[in-house]
């Protein structure tokens, strides 16, 4: 693995430094023109997309001419290691944008004597976006062997994702919905992915491959219903736990008789809801299992599952975080909250590893299941 990472870095040579520094200088020069300072509001986004994007382009530019016969594929290294090595290198490119963002932000604040602070949090959300782009771009590249096409598709995907996520996010504020950006981010990734899937399905449809079209749609629908049921089950379970937590507090304080009765009724209602949603979840999981087994076109089946994996995974991880905070909530216990934060970071790291592993598997699968005859 180390040899592969070093080989990729050697392939790039001194370009690995030229590109971040070049982008940095370009954006930095804007800070001298007062009217263009608006650009500075999105400079972190430009760095985090352009730096890994340009470096990845430089890395794969020569290789893509030869498709699967690239030099690394013929070396005595197993495919998984080879592709995983490539993911690690590209993740390193992504991380290279972080010091550039900090440096640029620091210089901007210092030069213009501003009183603002460096915002660390937004870098985290950008890194998830970039991760999502890698998640989808590399498998597309390994399938099509067309670098510009896969990068273009991902750029389009990211742009659509950012614009529509923003619209949905502002909409969610008005409706007082759960304003967690990530929920919208990932849910929307599923919507875009399914849109691509629908387009693909229509392509098949116009080629008169109606049976594939029907199976794809049924399978996608079952997965979406499963995701919806998981989300509903999560909400019901968390509601049930929180109501019972309050009941515990009321019992201890021996006060608020009216509220106690109300919460007892709520607990009973949530308990019933939980059972109903739980049963419906079990039914759709069973349906998914049966259909998965009987889906004749393995390629389409695996692709649908891969495209929708981030949505499923996000629900699982967000549930783990919420469940943990609900179960062990003790007000005022700072030590516990530190542990909880540590757990959130751990889940975040695990989720990144899981995402990369799924994407690596998809890349290997797509690379080896090339359906076009050369």
């Amino acid at each position: 693995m180390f040899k592969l990472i070093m080989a990729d870095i050697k392939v790039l040579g001194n370009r690995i430094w030229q590109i971040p520094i070049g982008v940095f200088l370009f954006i930095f020069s804007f800070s001298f023109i007062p009217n263009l300072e608006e650009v500075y509001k999105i400079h972190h986004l430009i760095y985090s997309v352009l730096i890994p994007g340009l470096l990845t382009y430089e890395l794969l530019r020569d290789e893509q001419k030869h498709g699967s016969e690239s030099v690394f594929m013929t070396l005595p290294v197993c495919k998984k290691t080879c592709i995983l090595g490539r993911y690690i290198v590209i993740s390193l490119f992504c991380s290279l944008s972080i010091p550039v963002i900090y440096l640029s932000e620091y210089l901007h604040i210092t030069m213009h004597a501003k009183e603002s602070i460096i915002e660390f949090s937004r870098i985290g959300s950008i890194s998830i976006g970039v991760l999502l782009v890698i998640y989808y771009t590399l498998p597309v590249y390994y399938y099509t062997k067309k670098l510009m096409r896969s990068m273009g598709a991902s750029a389009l995907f990211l742009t659509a994702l950012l614009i529509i996520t923003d619209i949905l996010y502002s909409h969610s504020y008005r409706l007082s919905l759960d304003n967690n950006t990530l929920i919208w981010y990932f849910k929307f990734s599923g919507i875009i992915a399914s849109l691509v899937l629908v387009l693909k399905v229509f392509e098949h449809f116009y080629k008169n491959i109606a049976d594939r079209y029907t199976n794809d749609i049924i399978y996608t629908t079952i997965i979406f219903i499963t995701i919806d049921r998981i989300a509903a089950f999560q909400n019901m379970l968390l509601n049930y736990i929180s109501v019972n937590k309050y009941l515990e507090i009321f019992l201890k304080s021996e006060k608020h008789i009216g509220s106690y009765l109300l919460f007892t009724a709520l607990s009973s209602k949530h308990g019933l809801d939980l059972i109903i949603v739980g049963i419906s979840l079990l039914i759709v999981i069973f349906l998914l299992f049966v259909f998965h087994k009987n889906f004749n076109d393995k390629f389409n089946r695996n692709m649908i599952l891969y495209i929708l994996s981030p949505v499923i995974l996000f629900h699982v991880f967000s549930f783990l975080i919420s469940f943990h905070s609900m179960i062990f909530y003790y007000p005022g216990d700072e030590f516990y909250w530190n542990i909880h934060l540590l757990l959130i970071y751990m889940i975040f790291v695990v989720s990144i590893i899981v995402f990369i592993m799924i994407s690596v598997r998809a890349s290997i699968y797509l690379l080896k299941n090339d359906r076009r005859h050369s």
Partner: protein
Amino acid sequence: MNKIIEINGVTKEFEGFKLDNISFGLEKGYIMGFIGPNGAGKTTTIRLIMNLLKKDSGDIKIFGMDNSKDEVAIKDRIGFVYEESYFYEHLTVKKMKDIIAPFYSRWDDEKFDEYCSVFGLLPNKKIRDLSKGTKMKFSLAVALSHNAELLILDEPTSGLDPVFRDKLMDILREEIQDENKSILFSTHITSDLEKIADYITFINNGRIVFSDQKDVLLENYKIIKGDSGILTGEIKSELLGVKENRFGFEALCNVEKQNVFSQFEIVTEKPTLEQMMVYMQNK
């Protein structure tokens, strides 16, 4: 017999093309010519052998090992030369070698330097500045410098001039002398194989038409020339591809079936591999 390559019942289906149940083998110490027209399935077969593609069914064993499960051990013993240079064009010969060498357990730097001097490769020259023939020499130098026991060459001579093609054949002939190496040589330029191949495998439309010793094949078939008047439907059915013109006919025929012409005046010739490929393709 010690088989280096064993392919049994391998199938791979694409949209509009199927590699259909192909089987053949290559023994240690021999050169096999893998011939067929463009789009016949030669490159797909090589990609399957190299585990660059996933087979739908069948078995591929290299050095007696499964090509998918023991991919790393197998590739360590294979030298692969592709039709076009698949190296990073902006790197120099030396830098590219430095990237590749650490991956092979039996890489021999001295051998590489020796090949570089024989082939006239300058270490500090960028790959993009090399001619097509020199790029091929570099590919060969890399493939031969890690003591590979099996060389897989995918159309290495296409686009090369006859002088270098001849030189390449000499290099390959020399490499095979110790009888420990084997070569699978895919090409549609069959004249190259006439000189060096021990075995010939012919693939057409995704099916193996024949796979046998070159000399046996050339002895088993004959080119028959005669007057078109003798070609009845029954006789035509015994022939493997017929070409007719105003002077008569020319056909490929199995020697066992040659007796159908015993009562006619015909001319027989030993076929070339190219003729065999052309006639069998037109069959």
